[in-house]
């Protein structure tokens, strides 16, 4: 119990059920190195649902739409809780938007978006398993092909 107290946050966001191996990718996406309040990151925790999982608690931060969308791509099974006054006031499953603009790189080296300054755009062809299709070159990418910009 004591340990929980340490990592409890008054206000902020808890991201749970992150597949363990992408926990630090989420840290990177959210640029947590520049957050001044309490952050706790745990990985390799046992989870009945997904085997090994990660949890990230971030004090004083609520996520913007683009941040949520990015996390949904790398950890579609994660849950997102909003904490106010030490209580969970909202708990959401992540959903992947129908189109993803600007933050994913096309994995096709011959795609025009990798040669000119063009905002990338992908259409979600399938939610589970995740498959997104480049608006420009029409190539389909699975989650392990996804590289964020």
């Amino acid at each position: 119990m004591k340990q929980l107290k340490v990592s409890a946050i008054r206000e902020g966001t808890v991201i749970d059920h992150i597949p363990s191996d992408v926990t630090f990718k989420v840290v990177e996406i959210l640029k947590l190195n520049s957050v001044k309040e309490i952050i706790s990151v745990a990985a390799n925790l046992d989870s009945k649902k997904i085997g090994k999982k990660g949890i990230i608690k971030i004090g004083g931060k609520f996520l913007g739409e683009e941040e949520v969308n990015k996390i949904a791509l790398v950890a579609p099974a994660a849950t997102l809780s909003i904490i106010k006054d030490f209580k969970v006031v909202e708990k959401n499953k992540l959903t992947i938007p129908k189109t993803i603009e600007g933050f994913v790189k096309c994995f096709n080296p011959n795609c025009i978006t990798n040669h000119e300054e063009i905002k990338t755009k992908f259409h979600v062809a399938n939610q589970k398993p995740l498959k997104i299709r480049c608006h420009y070159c029409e190539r389909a990418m699975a989650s392990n092909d996804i590289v964020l910009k």
Partner: protein
Amino acid sequence: MSFKGKDIISINELSKAEIIHILEVAKSLESRPKPNLLNGKVLAALFFEPSTRTRLSFESAMSKLGGKVVGFADPSVSSVKKGETLSDTIKIVERYADVIVMRHPLEGSARVASDVSDVPVINAGDGANQHPTQTLLDLYTIKKIQGHISNLNIAMVGDLKYGRTTHSLAMALSHFNCRLFFISPEQLRMPSYILEELDKKNVEYSEHTQIEEVIKNADILYSTRIQKERFPDLAEYEKVRNVYIITKDMLKSVKSNLKILHPLPRVNEISTDVDSTKYAYYFEQAANGIPIRQALLSLVLGKLK
């Protein structure tokens, strides 16, 4: 169904009804030419990568309908300066022309052009991605020689991994209940994303390594080039290069309606002794590009419905 102002970027965006309509318009233009239909209209042919055959076919189609062609055949001698974005080029060119036909080495370039252009854009090939007018002319050819497209046995042979034409043709044929046969070396098989799409659409197909396993059943044998540069190991190339040559001997017990197609140019995939047989149809196939391109130009310019 209105084509006026429509971009023709990807075969996957055309419905079955739209494909059939384009083929019908092509047929009517071929049997009743309309030499003044596109009088006063200007086509900009932007070939960022040389493709003489495709460019001449579009130019011929436009000229036969009374329109004019401007543009360039080779970007190195054009005014497209290094560093100028494609979007900027298109925004300028659309002020000179009523329709843009574009060939570009990068995949997705045609979509970029269509997103910024107010005049219709026709994709004449964007890298390994799409070449919808080639697929439409292939379908037009199949319909012309077999009388219909539905329920045919269609075999594709050669480099099915990198061959853009076979990918698009397979996708387009998924509308027509054809039985598909894919013949290729192990390392050049039809990509799984195409097979998945065919599965989704309940298309019946099978994969083979020998032409002989399939040729007796085929109504159409669509041959494509195996490119040497696709092989990391030249010895591997040497092994397969001669396995896929269609010779006159192989045609002894084929169906009498069999026709052999090839997007051309060929290297040695079809032996020249096949040319004089009734099964050879690749040169006529190339000529069918003209009515198809005439149809598309007339439709997107709103001169035909």
